[in-house]
């Protein structure tokens, strides 16, 4: 495995640091250890592909870094903040302001238009309403949609009226709209044909070149080839 050599996070710390992180899911049939004493550092601007077979702990790792879950033991630092110490609201704020998610199934909100899907996280960051900075929000959303190459005429379409590739572009725009440090991508090309998948990966690589730190879960070695480094998980540990 190759170690990424990039600029470090604020104060000289890595942007993401896992220190002997363990995640155990208590189940009726017995505890399942999804991540087992994993230590990892990701520098700012890195592009890491996380690989491994099903059940190896890839998604759990992504959820932990994405602040959707907290470690059972060990410490996970994002920008120097230990997420284990955070209550739900600060954890959500950290996720909202630092992380952007891109999912395999796009996960757009079907009731909202492409534009509104992109606008949603920005409005959440403003406290739930468009309010006095409405113009700023509109400009930001338009800029982000343009940066992912989505035709402006499609902005008023509902997700069901868009192709898979277009939906994933909207999802990437949504992930970028709050200008997060980190993009977490879970099989971002898994539901796309090869050609569209290639376009999306080129878009992600472009984002990375623009300074975004990307952690991407994938099974596909060709997709993983876009990353600066790969890590492989086996039974919740680095291989």
């Amino acid at each position, binding site marked *: 495995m190759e170690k990424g050599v990039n600029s470090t996070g604020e104060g000289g710390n890595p942007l993401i640091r896992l220190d002997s992180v363990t995640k155990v899911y208590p189940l009726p049939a017995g505890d399942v250890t999804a991540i087992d004493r994993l230590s990892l550092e990701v520098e700012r601007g890195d592009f890491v592909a996380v690989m491994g077979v099903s059940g190896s702990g890839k998604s759990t790792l992504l959820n932990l870094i994405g602040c*959707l879950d907290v470690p059972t033991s060990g410490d996970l630092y994002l920008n120097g903040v230990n997420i284990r110490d955070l209550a739900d609201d600060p954890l959500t704020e950290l996720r*909202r*302001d630092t992380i952007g*998610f891109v*999912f395999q199934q796009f*996960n757009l909100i079907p009731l909202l238009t492409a534009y*509104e899907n992109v606008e949603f996280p920005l409005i959440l*960051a403003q406290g739930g309403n468009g309010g006095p900075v409405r113009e700023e929000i509109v400009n930001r959303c338009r800029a982000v949609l343009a940066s992912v190459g989505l035709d402006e005429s499609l902005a008023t379409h509902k997700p069901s009226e868009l192709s898979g590739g277009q939906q994933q572009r909207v999802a990437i725009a949504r992930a970028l709209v709050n200008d997060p440090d980190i993009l977490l991508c879970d099989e971002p090309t898994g539901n796309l044909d090869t050609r569209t998948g290639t376009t999306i990966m080129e878009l992600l690589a472009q984002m990375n070149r623009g300074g975004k730190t990307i952690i991407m879960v994938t099974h596909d070695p060709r997709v993983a080839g876009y990353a600066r480094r790969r890590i492989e998980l086996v039974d919740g540990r680095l291989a």
Partner: protein
Amino acid sequence: MILFDYARRNIRLHWFRSFLAVIGIVIGVVAISSMGVLGNSLVLSVSESLTTVGDTIVVYPQSGGGPMGGGGTTALRITPRQVDEITRSVGTNIVIPVHTGADRVIVGSENRAASLYGMDPADIPEILDLEDGIFLRSTTGAMAGKRLAEEFDLNVGSTVRIGEDGERVRIVGILKERGIGFDINPDYALVVSDRWFESTYGEEGYNLVVVKVQNLEEIDSVTTAIEDALNRRTDVVTVLDTRMVLQTILDAFNSISTFTTAIGGISLIVAGVSILNVMMMSVTERTREIGIIRSIGAKRREVMRIFLYEALVLGLIGSGIGGVLSFGGAYLAVSVMLQSTTYLFVPSSLVYILYGMLFGIGTSLLSGLYPAWRAANLNPIEALRHD
């Protein structure tokens, strides 16, 4: 506003089940408002028909007579000596001893029973008002209550015979309509002089004594003074402060009004259960969506707001329609029950429509509270995995 708009769109997407939930709220609001308006109209119409006798104390013998009169056959009486004691105890306030009874009143071929009141002619202007003619001045003659005069077609100067073999008496005046009073009810009665009453029926005592209090603030002290004067050893008389009686009656009608409104409220509870059901279905169907919203940075309270907005929109629509239809419902209820809509368009009645609408919105929000809480507390990872 996007959160509100998002909630509104979800209601529109599932318009049919939202419509059914709204119908529940509409019915609840109409029921609660109509019953409230009906109850209030009932109280107002009763209050109106009762003579306001706030300045009156009525004294009647213990276990005899009664506040509504008609105790002609009761053996217990207030003696002239007791009347003197009352007069002494109340100072400068006016004391009016009254004989009450009933007899046949015959006018031409018409022969009916009617109430009779015997009073000192000098006292009559103190508690009764004149519609036509003059007040009684001598021991002979009589005054007719307004309703009795209408029934018998009596005018000033008409003569009536009191009792099957009784003497003829000339009507000198017609009294103004007084409504139901706690002291005397002369609308269907003849008022004669006390002397005439005593000589005709051989009565010595009085059935009741009315005390008109000049200064309302003295009512309590005057009541106590009469009690102290006559009920020293045993309770000889009952002293009734008419304000309390009026209050008791109004309290009873208010209780009836509250009860009927509460029955209307039951339908609102049913509507609340319907909203709860719709909202729970919405949470279950949108579990994945909730996971997405959480993953893009929505806090628990923001997720909660989305669902509470949905409940609020349902409540606002239901209460709005219900409020409009309540006018019709209340009009129908009041028309059927009271045969009059006089008290429908008064603020104290209309406020029940506002209450009904507020209850509708409140019920809706309350019903949405648990589903919203559940949505807000879903585990984001599990929610994202949900199909």
